C-alpha cells in the first residue's frame, strides 16, 4: 500500500508545495499534460501524489482517503471540528501566509477592540431590531473566537467571495476575512480590529489518523520524515 499525499491542484500553492518538497530532495510533478490531475513522485518510494482542491484536503484526510495532505491551517480548523484530535501537523511550510481577521468600516472611529464591537452590537440590535451582521466564509473559526471573547448580539452571514464589498452593499456591518497584506480591506474602506486576529494561517503538511495504516505505510512515513527533517 502506498502513502497518498494530497496536494493543492492549482496555482501558487501547488508550485510552492512542489518547490518545498524539491528543496528536501523529493520531486513532485504533474504527469502528462498540464490539464491532467495526475501526479508522480521521485526521490522516495511508496508515496503517491494526489492532486485535489485545497478546500477538500481536510475532509479527505479525515476520511482516510489520503494519508498526508498540504493545505492551509485555516481550512483544517474551519472544516474539522476538534481538528487536533483528527489530524496532526507535521510541518509548517512557511508560505501561503494569510491572517483571518475581523474588520469594520474606517468610519467606525469608536471601534478598535472586540470590547467595542460587542458594545456596538448591543446598540445596533436595539436600534435596528436585528443582530449585527458579520460576513464570512469561516463560520466555525469566527463563532468560536467570538464566543471565547464574549462577543454577543451578532450574526454570521455567509459570504463565499468579495466579502469586503458586503458592507457597502448593506448586507453586512462587519467582515471576518482572510488577508495577507490588508490591502484589499484598506481599499474597501475597512480597518482591522487591534485584537481581531482570529488565526494566522499558512500552508501546512498534515497527516491523518494512523490506526488503519499498514506497516509499509508507517515505514514510508518514517523515511519521508527523515527527508523532510534533513
Amino acid at each position, binding site marked *: 500500500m502506498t502513502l497518498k499525499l494530497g496536494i493543492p491542484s492549482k496555482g501558487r500553492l501547488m508550485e510552492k508545495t512542489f518547490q518545498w518538497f524539491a528543496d528536501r530532495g523529493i520531486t513532485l510533478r504533474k504527469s502528462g499534460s498540464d490539464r491532467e490531475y495526475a501526479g508522480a513522485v521521485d526521490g522516495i518510494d511508496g508515496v503517491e501524489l494526489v492532486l485535489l482542491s485545497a478546500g477538500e484536503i481536510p475532509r479527505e484526510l479525515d476520511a482516510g482517503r489520503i494519508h498526508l495532505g498540504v493545505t492551509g491551517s485555516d481550512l483544517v480548523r474551519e472544516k474539522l*471540528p*476538534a481538528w487536533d*484530535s*483528527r489530524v496532526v501537523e507535521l510541518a509548517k511550510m512557511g508560505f501561503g501566509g494569510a491572517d483571518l481577521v475581523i474588520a469594520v*468600516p*474606517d*468610519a*467606525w*472611529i*469608536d471601534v*478598535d*477592540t472586540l*470590547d*467595542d464591537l*460587542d*458594545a*456596538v452590537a*448591543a*446598540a*445596533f440590535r436595539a*436600534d*435596528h431590531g436585528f*443582530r449585527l451582521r458579520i460576513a464570512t466564509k469561516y*463560520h*466555525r473559526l469566527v*463563532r*468560536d473566537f*467570538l*464566543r471565547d*471573547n*464574549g462577543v*454577543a*448580539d*451578532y*450574526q*454570521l452571514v455567509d459570504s463565499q467571495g468579495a466579502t469586503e464589498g458586503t*458592507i*457597502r452593499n*448593506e448586507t*453586512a*456591518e462587519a467582515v471576518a476575512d482572510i488577508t495577507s497584506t490588508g490591502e484589499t480591506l484598506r481599499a474597501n*474602506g*475597512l480597518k482591522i480590529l*487591534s485584537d481581531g486576529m482570529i488565526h494566522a494561517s499558512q500552508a501546512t503538511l498534515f497527516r491523518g489518523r494512523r490506526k488503519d495504516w499498514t506497516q509499509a505505510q508507517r515505514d514510508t512515513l518514517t523515511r519521508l520524515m527523515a527527508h523532510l527533517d534533513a
Partner: protein
Amino acid sequence: MTVDASRDTWARARAYQDVLTAQGAVLTDADYLQPADTLLDLYGEDIRARAFTTQDPVRGEMMLRPDFTVPIVQQHMAHGAEPARYTYMGKVFRKQEDGGDRPTEFVQVGYEVFDGTDRAAADAEVFATLAGLLKDTPVTPATGDIGILRAAVQGLNTTPARRAALMRHLWRPRRFKTLLDRFCGLTDTPTSRAALLAQDDPLADLPPVLGLRSRDQIARRIDALRADAAADPISGGERSLLDALLAVRETAPFALTALRDIAVDLPSISAAVDGLAARLDALSARNIDVDTLMFEASYGRTSMEYYDGFVFGFSADPALNLPPVATGGRYDALTTVLGGGTGVPAVGGVIRPALVAAAEGAL
C-alpha cells in the same frame, strides 16, 4: 444505543410521565423542527454550534429542537391559561462539536409549571417532583439563584449603562469580570479609546460612512464613551461584596446566613434573599432536607442562559463523568420575550432517563 438500552430509557421515561400526569400535569408535545429565527434571537449565534440546522424550502431555516422549553412556552403564551402544569417526553438533539462521544440525541421528560400564586412554592414543587423521581438514584442536588446575582448587579451604585452592560454578560463570566475590572478602574482605558476621547471633535474628519451603521449612531456611541469616562469607578467596597456574593458555596442554611450578612451592605439583594428563605421553607415543607442541600451563588452561570431565578441540578458521582441527570430553574423573563411583552411566572425542569440508568450503573 442498543435496543435494550433504548427500551429501558423509554420505559423509565413513561414511568416518570405517569407520575407527573397522576399529579395533574397535562400531556403536551412539540414539533421536532423548530423555526431557527426564534432560537437564534434567544441564544445568538452560539446555538448553531449546539443545534442541528436544516432547510425547509418554504419555512426557511429550521432547527431540530435542542430543548422543549421554548416551544412549550410559546404554546402556553398563545393558548394557555394560568395556572398550568405540563409534561412532555421525547428526544432533543444537540451537536457535540468538541468531538466528544456524548450522544447527539437523547430522551428528556419535562415538567413545567406556570403558576404565579406562590413562586417559592412552585420552585419547591418542581424541585421536589424531580427529587421524587430520583429518590432511588445516587445523585446529589445543587442549587443556585440567578435572581440574587441580578439584584446585586442592578443595585450597583454606577451608571445605568454600566449596569446594563454587566447584566447582558452575566452569562459570560470572563467578559463580566473584564467589564467589572474596567468599571472599577482596575484596568487602563484602551489607548485607542483615550486617543479618541482626547479629540475635541472626533467626527470632524470622519471617513466616508459605509453600511447601515450611521454617523448618528457613531456620534451617540462617542457620547456614551465620554459619559462612561466621566463616571466614577464602582467602589472597592461594592466590588468586594459582589466577589463575596459570587463565592458563596455552602449548605443552604449557611449560605442564607452569608447572604444575609452581605445584604446588610448590599441592600438591593434583600428581597431576593428573602425569596431564597421562603423557597427553603417551601422545600422543607415538601420534606427536602435543606440542611444538607448545597447552594452555590454562581451555579448555572455558564450553561443556563434563560434562567433568571432559582436554578438546580442533580449530578451523579463525579467519577462517572456524566452531565447532570436532571436540571431546571425559573425562567420568568423568557416568557416575556416569547410572549411579546407579557410574561408569566414559570419554572420547570427536565430529567434524562438514560443518564439516570447510567448513574444507577444499570448499563
